[in-house]
């Protein structure tokens, strides 16, 4: 159990740094989707399935949909 609790937060931090640094907004949105995926897995490992379902429902579809629609209406590059 200890190995999971070390690997998964490191992957989360790497995703967050990439989202903050990346210049292309489409790539940032894709990595943000991966971040929400791994965050749901982290909540799930901490035995909080309520929060995991909320994170899966909101982060999986609605947030990415809103961001992609906004990129379509504006510029792709920062």
């Amino acid at each position, binding site marked *: 159990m200890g190995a999971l609790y070390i690997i998964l937060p490191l992957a989360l931090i790497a995703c967050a740094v990439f989202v903050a640094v990346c210049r292309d907004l489409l790539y940032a949105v894709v990595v943000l989707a991966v971040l929400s995926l791994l965050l749901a897995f982290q909540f799930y490992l901490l035995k909080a*399935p*309520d929060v995991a*379902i*909320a994170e899966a*429902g*909101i982060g*999986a*579809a*609605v947030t990415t*949909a*809103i961001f992609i*629609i*906004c990129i*379509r*209406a504006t510029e792709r590059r920062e």
Partner: protein
Amino acid sequence: MSKIVRTVANQLILFVVIFGLYVIIQGHVTPGGGFQGGAIIASGAVLLIVASGSQEIKTWLRERRLSVVESSGALLFILLAFAGIGTVFFFNFLVGSRLFGGIPSVGPNPGDVWTGGVIPLMNLGVGLKVMAGLSAVVLALALFSGGEELEE
């Protein structure tokens, strides 16, 4: 999008809505609740928007109707909160009555749907509210994004 995606989405929306209703109604027994189930059903609406395009969805799913549903959900929530004001605000007055009135035994048990007092009805209200609200936001953004000409 293509015909394959449209067909699969039209078949899959049934399962998404049924699972969302399951999460809402069983919210006091298993993990889940109003917010989570409403988010799942709103994701079904988002799937329909990406599969068929917002201009075809617009013919039967209006923001005006969605705002009516959302306001009725909020009204149900606040009326249930005010109904127990004889004792205290947000009092669980249905425990022991015939509607959702059972009391579970203490400790780990498989659970029963007819328990929880006023909690399942509040779950229903919050579920209606979240479902209509998130669907309305995404639908309005998609209509606004698709309505104007883009130069690319």
